[in-house]
């Protein structure tokens, strides 16, 4: 009797632990070989045959196609530099330097990877269309209400994700230090 109870209990706990851990790792996007610069994280190996089992499972589940290693690299930001989550009801300034790349794009998604609806139908900026200061630097403002300059509308969503994609870039698996690849800072400017 005790054996039966014990084994049932064990199997139940095992299923809970196993499935719980799988769900947790796949929804949080856990993968090995992360390259983190400031608030930005990329998984260079996910665009190659060296992709780890966690990233494989997470891609199969979400239905996305990762950017290939010979194409470019994608950096994801879920928080600002202070570690606060990106809230679409707040405004954030994104400024600084970008690593060397022939082109880059920065795109605002909801956490499921969908574009966020907004009045001016803007979801991204490319390195060519961004308005720069005289010294070549730029500031992007992600905010729910219209802003002068490079306004990236958040649509007032609860959470958003920024994806910075560098195309034709030396940044990749071999990149070690943040000096090689400076990424723009994300600073919260206040909430409405």
């Amino acid at each position, binding site marked *: 009797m005790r054996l039966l109870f014990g084994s049932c209990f064990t199997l139940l706990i095992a299923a809970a*632990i196993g499935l719980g851990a799988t769900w947790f790792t796949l929804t949080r996007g856990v993968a090995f070989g992360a390259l983190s610069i400031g608030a930005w994280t990329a998984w260079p190996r996910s665009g190659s045959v060296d992709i780890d089992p966690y990233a494989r499972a997470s*891609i*199969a589940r979400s239905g996305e196609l990762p950017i290939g290693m010979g194409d470019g690299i994608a950096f994801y930001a879920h928080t600002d530099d202070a570690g606060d989550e990106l809230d679409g009801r707040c405004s954030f300034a994104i400024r600084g330097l970008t690593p060397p790349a022939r082109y880059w794009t920065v795109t605002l998604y909801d956490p*499921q990877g*969908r*574009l966020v609806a907004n009045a001016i139908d803007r979801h991204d900026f490319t390195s060519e*269309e961004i308005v720069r200061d005289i010294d070549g630097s730029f500031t992007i403002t992600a905010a729910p209400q219209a802003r002068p300059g490079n306004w990236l509308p958040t649509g007032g969503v609860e959470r958003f994700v920024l994806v910075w994609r560098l195309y034709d870039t030396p940044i990749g698996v071999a990149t070690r230090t943040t000096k090689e690849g400076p990424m723009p800072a994300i600073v919260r400017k206040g909430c409405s």
Partner: protein
Amino acid sequence: MIRGLLWILAAILLGGIVHLATVLAMPQTAKDDAFSRLAPLTPVNRVVPLPAPTAQNAIMPFMDPAFASAVCRYDLSAGSLKLIAPVSQAYTSVTFYTRKSIAYYAINDRAAGRHSIELDLMTPAQHAALPEDEDVTAADRLIIESPSATGLIVLRALAPEPGSMPMARLALAAATCGLQPPP
């Protein structure tokens, strides 16, 4: 007491096994991966333009809206494939994915170094069966081996500003992929 701890230890170990097994099985069992999403929209061995992602509708999550994209869903079981993609003005890339969405090869316009990206895609068996003495081994012929018989080739052309999107789409519209006639 000790017996209870042993049961819990067994549960944790078994839980770890369940976790690893489910993670490894996920790509095999996923019903909604990129290939399954694209299969109903794309005829086999043909380049098909993909609609641009919008807030209401996107075929796949995390698509880059600055790019025009097209897909060739390939099946190499009847022969090898030839892909020709003209290069657009700004930036063009071609990425090869297996049936399970693994990017096994990617090339951009600069690496290709010509006005068009031309590639031969074949299975390792088809590659091995190529006659060695023919001029098919010429250095300018780029041969890619696909780890799986089916998969996706995704062509992407950048529109650096929204106004150049029609040009980018036009460049991709001229891309072709198709089975090679047997030699």
